[in-house]
């Protein structure tokens, strides 16, 4: 059952203020991920304090890296149920967990960080993992302007 929105809003804001575009409906997910072009990071946000409490700051650290995905998206597990289910359908080979992060390149998952890879680790360690994937798959300065980008 979803938490009350007022309780969750700070967790949404912690992500969206980084320039990550939150996808809250199936239509928004399909419009964002459907084309399957370029690189996109999908952050599956969560209220879980023990894991998401580290994942969100890790995302913030990683997004200071020079090499970044072209598109930055998030969905909120347990809150925006339909949007989250739809987003997960784009990386259906991976079992649902939250928080988690999927890096897609031309519609294919090239890097996935599960919840179990977040638990017990500090934001810096998680961010290093993410930045390593950015270096491998995302060329600097290729991010698209506008929706889903940080600008």
């Amino acid at each position: 059952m979803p938490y009350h929105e007022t309780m969750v809003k700070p967790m949404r804001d912690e992500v969206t203020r980084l320039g990550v575009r939150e996808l809250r409906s199936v239509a928004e997910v399909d419009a964002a991920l459907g084309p399957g072009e370029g690189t996109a990071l999908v952050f599956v946000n969560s209220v879980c304090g023990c894991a998401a409490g580290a994942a969100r700051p890790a995302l913030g650290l990683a997004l200071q890296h020079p090499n970044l995905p072209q598109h930055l998206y998030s969905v909120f597990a347990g809150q925006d149920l339909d949007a989250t289910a739809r987003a997960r359908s784009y990386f259906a080979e991976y079992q649902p967990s939250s928080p988690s992060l999927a890096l897609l390149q031309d519609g294919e998952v090239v890097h996935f960080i599960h919840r179990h890879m977040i638990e017990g680790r500090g934001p810096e360690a998680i961010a290093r993992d993410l930045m390593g994937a950015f270096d491998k798959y995302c060329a600097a300065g290729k991010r698209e302007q506008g929706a889903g980008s940080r600008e």
Partner: protein
Amino acid sequence: MPGHVFHPGHEELHGVTVVIEGSSGRTWVGRYHETNERGVAVLDVAIHDPATAAVPRATWIERIRKFGVRVDEPFVLLPAKEVGPITRLSEWMESSAKTPGASSHG
């Protein structure tokens, strides 16, 4: 609110994805909830039974590490006598390689 914790006061492993090796030879992977007088409670659990499994346990756990936990049971309560070593999934290979059967909990 970076670092915000929703459930303070729980055991260290609460909410952590663990591997539980059973005395029966079965293995469970899921989110540790708590240990109480009835046993160890685990959520969203994948179960490996060597009698019926298609792949050896090591392969099964490697697959979980890559693709995540495919849930067989949403909740399992394991009797204390069945529960062997409990290890974080993220540490399972390392701890098992160093010290077979090493327990990180319980």
